[in-house]
């Protein structure tokens, strides 16, 4: 049977070749988070364990001039640090450029790691306008399940960040002991 499909492996970004030398090691920026349509579609479909969510949500959208300073191209990895944590994400040319000095990461577990939980007694955490630094890195972007394990360590005994980061990946499918949906629902895909 033919089902309509809204899957998209990576968000569409401007196909710009960055030709900077990468003279800056650590770039000081302002971090904004929020939603965009790729992240929203993937989250609402429920595909949060998939590579698609990692690319839609775990991507730092940057001004091409900032990318030239760091010497990175579309879908390279960068390390973003704030006072509240650090996370490895992809980087890509922003569709809303120019906005030199500002980076945008869609909301999701990756952005959560580095946003401020300060509510200033107003119930709402400060998700926008946080000072951050961006630097080039060789570390890989973690899938959602691996990231949750790395950040919160709720069900692992190790407490060391590097050990947990390099553990075997939990993969793109739910890990549980029990019947899967194919066994329970009569279907004819």
């Amino acid at each position, binding site marked *: 049977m033919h089902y*309509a*499909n809204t899957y998209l492996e990576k968000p569409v970004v401007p196909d710009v070749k960055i030709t900077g030398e990468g003279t800056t090691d650590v770039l000081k920026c302002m971090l904004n988070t929020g939603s965009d349509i790729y992240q929203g579609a993937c989250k609402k479909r*429920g595909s949060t364990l998939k590579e698609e969510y990692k690319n839609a949500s775990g991507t730092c959208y940057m001004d091409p001039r900032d990318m030239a300073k760091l010497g990175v191209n579309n879908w390279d990895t960068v390390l973003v640090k704030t006072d*509240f944590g650090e996370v490895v994400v992809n980087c890509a040319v922003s569709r809303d450029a*120019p906005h030199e000095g500002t980076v945008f990461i869609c909301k999701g577990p990756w952005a959560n790691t580095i946003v401020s939980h300060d509510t*200033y007694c*107003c*119930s709402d955490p400060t998700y926008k306008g946080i000072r951050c630094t961006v630097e080039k890195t060789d570390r890989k972007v973690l899938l959602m399940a691996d990231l949750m394990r790395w950040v919160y360590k709720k069900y*692992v005994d190790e407490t060391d960040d590097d050990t947990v980061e390099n553990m075997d990946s939990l993969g793109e499918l739910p890990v549980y002991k029990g019947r899967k949906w194919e066994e329970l629902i009569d279907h004819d895909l």
Partner: protein
Amino acid sequence: MTYEPPVTDYDYIVENCTCAFCGCNCDDLDYLVKNGHVVAVRHACRLGASKIMEDMDQRLIVPMIRDENGELMEVDWDTALDKAAEYIANSVRPVFYGWSETSTECMKEGVALGEYIGAVLDNQATICHGPSLQAVQNAGYPIQTLGEVQNRADVIAYSGSNAMNSHPRHMARYAVFCRGYFRQRGRFDRTVITMDPKFSDTAKCSDKWIGFEQNGDYGFYNAIRAVLRGKELYQDVISGIPKEDIYELAEEMKNAEFGVLFFGLGLTHTLSKQRNIDIAIKMVQDLNRFSKWGLTPMRGHFNVNGFNIFMAFECGFAFGVDYCRGYPRYMLGETNTIDLLTRKEPDCFMVIAADPGAHFPNGANQHLANIPVIQIDIHWGPSTELADVVLPGSFDDEWIVRELKERVMKLREEPNVAPKYVPNPNAL
């Protein structure tokens, strides 16, 4: 992006279904059904379509609890509900968070359970439009319906909101491109102004983009108010905007026949929080001295406003309602989920139709790793990675919460469980 051929192989169409994604609640969706399965949907936006054509790999199908190795294991409904009820009955400060993507009947059961056990009930407003609700209490609520916008509005202002990405049919169906009784030519009869530091997709299809600087919203709206009240601006540049532009904008807004301000999370998530909305509401009130203006918050989930209205109706407060003393209590920065979690207060957390794993800051979520988490949801999401009991919900959320309530009541009546404080009627 590959070409996706349209679905032509279907048995019948179900017309005019309501979309359960965003606050627009579009009611013209057509489902294409084959052998009892929805195979495609027409008229929905990308977000609505992906919600309906869901990912079955991650659909929660069976109730699960964590075994001793920390791995989720399928159990029967009785065991899972008993385990969840045990966590709730043994807690002294439970928080029930979520409710925005479920039915109002389910909320009713939730309030009954929360009142019995002395829990905090909160919804997604606490991390999105909570400041808007506070501002409404501070400054008023000059609101209009989307039908009025469609038929009458000739100036549409978006502020801190990217409608093209988060409410994709808002511009097309309700506000900008649609034709109305007094706006027969649709888009040509309307002026669209976007005020946002980001040159967002909404800004790209607007007539005017005002890119004030980050955290500059408060100063910017105050400057417009000053101009509207006939004052002169002494600074040349305010919040990154030249004063001539502010004069021009104020004039344009004054001359509107019917103007509407739609505001989103760009205002509530920056530093001034509810003060931004206060000032935006007051600006709309000032504009009503010259013309007809209204405003509408761009709410996210389809029933997020439903929960706020329901709670305000039931107990007098819109969100963050604390029942720990037996009566409803609400205190900003005290009974809200993020503040409670940051202070490490809750000892049991129930997530229903929400995803704190995906949307709470790390500093708040860290506490979820220390306490039992019960999840009622339809998909395996980031919260499932932190959940100890997983109950697959759907349209039977109401049944699950009612079952939980009955089981918790039964447990609390047993003498070896932490007693609930019951006021003695003879004490006086």
